[in-house]
């Protein structure tokens, strides 16, 4: 088959509702799958608005196999599994066929109800909202046991299986930590003895170290019980480390699918490549993190073309002629790869090796699927960028000097800050890392004057700013001009009623510069936003745009120090890469120092010159970034480092 034909047959045109591809096993395999999951042509619509939110999603998961669905926020991961489980939010409708454990369930609510718990179960994202707050966790676990089961024996057994002592059963959810709650969630999800387990970002709300423990636990249990497992995550490396296969979603469609190791080695879709490139590596510092401009489009906005076309460097005219079908790419490494489309009904085409399902044995899954028309022509993946060295230490008088800072919150068992000292030199970026509860945010808020320390001193540009309450008005103004802060959630710090232009004008005014409209526009451009953005209100902006506005506001007065409290942790990797790039550029241009608070060691590696590691309000290790990250001396730092997914399958071991 010539490549031209292959291409034209590999297109379904504007009709987005049809199945655009099939799972590795082909349509017949789906019928034979027996146990496990087989989803075909899944589409989700919102009838009230006529919007289609995702379409043509087709995949399969065999018993004992683990598959990750990866994608950025809004790509349709959650909707896919909720549609698959018949748990869509009100007002949304699904179409397409879903087989679970060999039974067709998409048109049979009763079969669904019967299967829930006993055949298929779900673990959800937020351990803090997952459990009924008013019921002892033991009872909640018991509620899901099959009828006739002996709760007295089964609940402790399930708790033991997830590594919790039996007395946890008598506690209420609010008496447990996030990690324990997620373990209880897993025990509850397992109570019915399901053969299919779906987990929707089960660890995103947890600390990195807890995340690794919980994921390792889920994987161990899944192997022991030989369940088919679907993991939703936005983190491609995490997916590689945890699952046998990965599927990449974008704008409500599948972009690429294949074995984890194979996809890790070579990505056959430009989007996957961009996604992977945007994830900062934890082991070296990149000169620039490759970021793709723009943001994820809505499904309907790209209904007639390749969803990635507007951001793809390889796009050609044909990419916009129709929706490229997800098809098998038999990939012999090198330029001679061969493509052939897999048709919905015709079974495996000549070029595609048939995949056999043997119960109990994960199918051979060397088939690679890609929805890129040019999958076979993609240039060889670039060699990993070499690392660069962070800036040399500066020895000038520090812009910030914190000495023996202490703060204990009323009613807390231990201090949030227990004698922390640090310095930031002019133009230097200092990272502060640690798990949640280690006191990072309290430190940042004290320095910014949003929190009053119990003891200790804070010198900002030489002036004592330990207690903003006791400072004169001029001193406070001076302190604010020296240090500005940006937050994790830019939305909560922007006044929803004011336009972006008004907010920025105010910031310029506060700096003593009556704002000419042109200044606002320049400020917007300096953070990579268009001038027309000035008329918008925060509600109309995406998360990344809001953070840019917040940054613009903070740097309006060209402060000597920018305090950043987890500025990128609520953002998608591609947006994160953009914002990190922006911060690096601003630092360069304004020779601004930064106190950069984060829990993410890969992020801190990219930006910080020196690092302080906080544990329970104390600084346990400090030094140049490379030294702390490459040769950590404190066990806590080592544990933090081990919890960063590296993409290898040995990570969870």
């Amino acid at each position, binding site marked *: 088959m010539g490549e031209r034909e292959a291409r034209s047959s590999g297109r379904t045109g504007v009709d987005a509702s049809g199945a655009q591809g099939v799972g590795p096993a082909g349509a017949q395999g789906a019928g034979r799958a027996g146990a496990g999951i087989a989803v075909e042509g899944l589409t989700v619509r919102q009838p009230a608005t006529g919007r289609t939110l995702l379409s043509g999603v087709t995949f399969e998961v065999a018993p004992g196999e683990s598959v990750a669905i990866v994608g950025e926020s809004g790509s349709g991961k959650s909707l896919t599994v909720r549609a698959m489980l018949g748990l869509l939010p009100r007002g949304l409708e699904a179409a397409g066929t879903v087989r679970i454990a060999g039974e067709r369930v998409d048109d049979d609510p009763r079969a669904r109800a019967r299967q*829930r718990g006993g055949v298929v179960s779900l673990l*959800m994202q937020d351990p803090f*909202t997952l459990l*009924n*707050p008013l019921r002892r966790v033991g009872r909640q676990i018991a509620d899901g046991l099959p009828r006739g089961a002996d709760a007295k024996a089964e609940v402790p057994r399930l708790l033991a299986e997830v590594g919790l002592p039996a007395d946890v059963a008598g506690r209420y959810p*609010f008496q447990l930590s996030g990690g324990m709650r997620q373990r209880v969630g897993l025990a*509850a999800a397992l109570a019915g003895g399901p053969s299919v387990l779906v987990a929707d970002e089960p660890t995103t709300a947890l600390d990195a170290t807890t995340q690794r423990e919980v994921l390792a636990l889920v994987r161990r249990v899944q192997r022991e019980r030989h369940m088919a497992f679907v993991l939703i995550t936005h983190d491609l490396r995490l997916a590689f480390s945890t699952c046998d296969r990965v599927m990449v979603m974008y704008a409500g469609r599948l972009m690429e699918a294949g074995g984890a190791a194979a996809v890790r080695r070579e990505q056959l879709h430009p989007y996957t490549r961009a996604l992977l490139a945007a994830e900062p590596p934890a082991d070296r510092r990149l000169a620039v993190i490759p970021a793709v401009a723009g943001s994820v489009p809505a499904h309907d906005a790209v209904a007639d073309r390749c969803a990635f076309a507007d951001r793809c460097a390889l796009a050609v005219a044909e990419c916009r002629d129709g929706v490229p079908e997800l098809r098998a790419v038999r990939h012999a490494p090198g330029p001679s790869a061969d493509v052939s489309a897999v048709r919905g009904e015709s079974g495996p085409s000549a070029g595609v090796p048939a995949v056999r399902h043997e119960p109990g044995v994960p199918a051979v899954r060397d088939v690679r699927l890609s929805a890129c028309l040019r999958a076979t022509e993609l240039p060889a993946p670039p060699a990993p960028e070499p690392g660069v060295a962070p800036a040399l230490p500066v020895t000038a008088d520090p812009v910030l000097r914190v000495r023996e800072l202490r703060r204990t919150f009323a009613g807390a068992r231990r201090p949030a800050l227990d004698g922390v000292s640090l310095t930031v030199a002019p133009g230097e970026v200092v990272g502060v890392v640690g798990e949640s509860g280690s006191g990072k945010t309290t430190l940042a808020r004290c320095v910014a004057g949003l929190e009053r320390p119990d003891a200790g001193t804070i010198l900002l540009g030489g002036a004592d700013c330990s207690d903003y309450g006791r400072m004169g008005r001029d001193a406070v103004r001076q302190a604010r001009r020296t240090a500005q802060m940006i937050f994790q959630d830019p939305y909560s710090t922007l006044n929803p009623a004011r336009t972006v232009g008004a907010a920025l004008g105010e910031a310029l005014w506060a700096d003593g510069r009556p704002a000419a409209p042109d200044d606002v526009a320049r400020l917007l451009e300096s953070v990579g936003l268009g001038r027309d953005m000035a008329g918008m209100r925060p509600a109309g902006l995406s998360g990344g745009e809001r953070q840019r506005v917040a940054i613009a506001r903070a740097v309006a007065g060209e402060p000597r120090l920018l305090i950043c409290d987890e500025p990128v942790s609520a953002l998608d990797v591609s947006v994160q890469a953009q914002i990190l790039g922006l911060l690096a550029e601003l630092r360069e241009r304004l020779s601004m120092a930064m106190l950069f608070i984060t829990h993410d060691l890969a992020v801190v590696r990219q930006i910080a010159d020196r690092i302080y590691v906080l544990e329970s309000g104390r600084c346990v290790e400090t030094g140049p970034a490379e030294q702390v990250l490459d040769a950590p001396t404190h066990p806590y730092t080592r544990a933090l480092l081990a919890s960063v997914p590296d993409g290898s399958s040995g990570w969870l071991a």
Partner: protein
Amino acid sequence: MTGRSWGVFLLRRLAGTAVVVALLSIGVFGLLYLAPGSVQQTLLGTRPATPETIAAIQARYHLNDPLPVQYLSWLGGVLRGDLGTSIRTGMPVADMLGQRLPLTLALTGYGTLLAVLAGIPLGVAGALRRGRAADRLVVTAGVVGLSAPPFAVGLLLLVVFAAGLGWFPVYGVGEGFADQVLHLTLPAVALAVGAVGMLVRFSRAALIRELDQDYVVFARARGLGAPAVLGYALRNSLVPILTAAGLIVTGMLAGTVLVEVTFALPGLGSLLVDSVTFKDVPVVQALALLLTLLIAAVNLLVDVGYSAADPRVRIGGRPS
């Protein structure tokens, strides 16, 4: 929860209630001085103002003592159960209240029962059929109930069911349990109508919010049956519903005033109206104190209810 922590909890709430009642008693005592005319004049009522009666009143009410002393002696009397004598009837106030209290309590209890039996199931039904015709009907009925004044509803009920259809007696309290229930039905319904509206609104909104929570989706996803899932959500809507219930009971206590007058029932409400008209200040004082106590008791019950419903209140954890 252990018996001991329950005890501590109850003690704390009781102490809080005692403080509130003590503060309010000062206000109630002040009623006497707030009443128009001089205190003597008020206490004299319709009696002739001879020097003897004035002297008697001054001695009886210690009017020549400093105010705090007067308050304390009044309080002492109250604590001993001596609420004074009615100006209008000359009977001990305590006896008058004692005669009338049961009817008002019965009326309020009956009304609350009706409101709960109708309001919560309707609210739940509305929440479960959210957005459909049945739900809209429930919501509309709730709004109508909420905006209908109890005495107007009472009159309407009287005209239709008592005078017109003759199913219920027009006034009076009846003899024997069944007859009494029959006599109290229309007044209780009149009281309950507004409360039903409020309960429908609160329970529907609370349940709708809970049904959208993650733990409900999770419970469904792991195969819990519909009744168990509804149980989860209902249990979590209990706190707002309890709040509403507390409000409606206190609201009903106030509502009895007009309803008792409308249905000519000899309860505390009609006593209050008569006494106010007559400037029978000792009775009004005692009634105000009693109502305060009743309301404090209801609030205490609601607080106990909260902590029974929500372990986070009881054990003192922070809700997450």
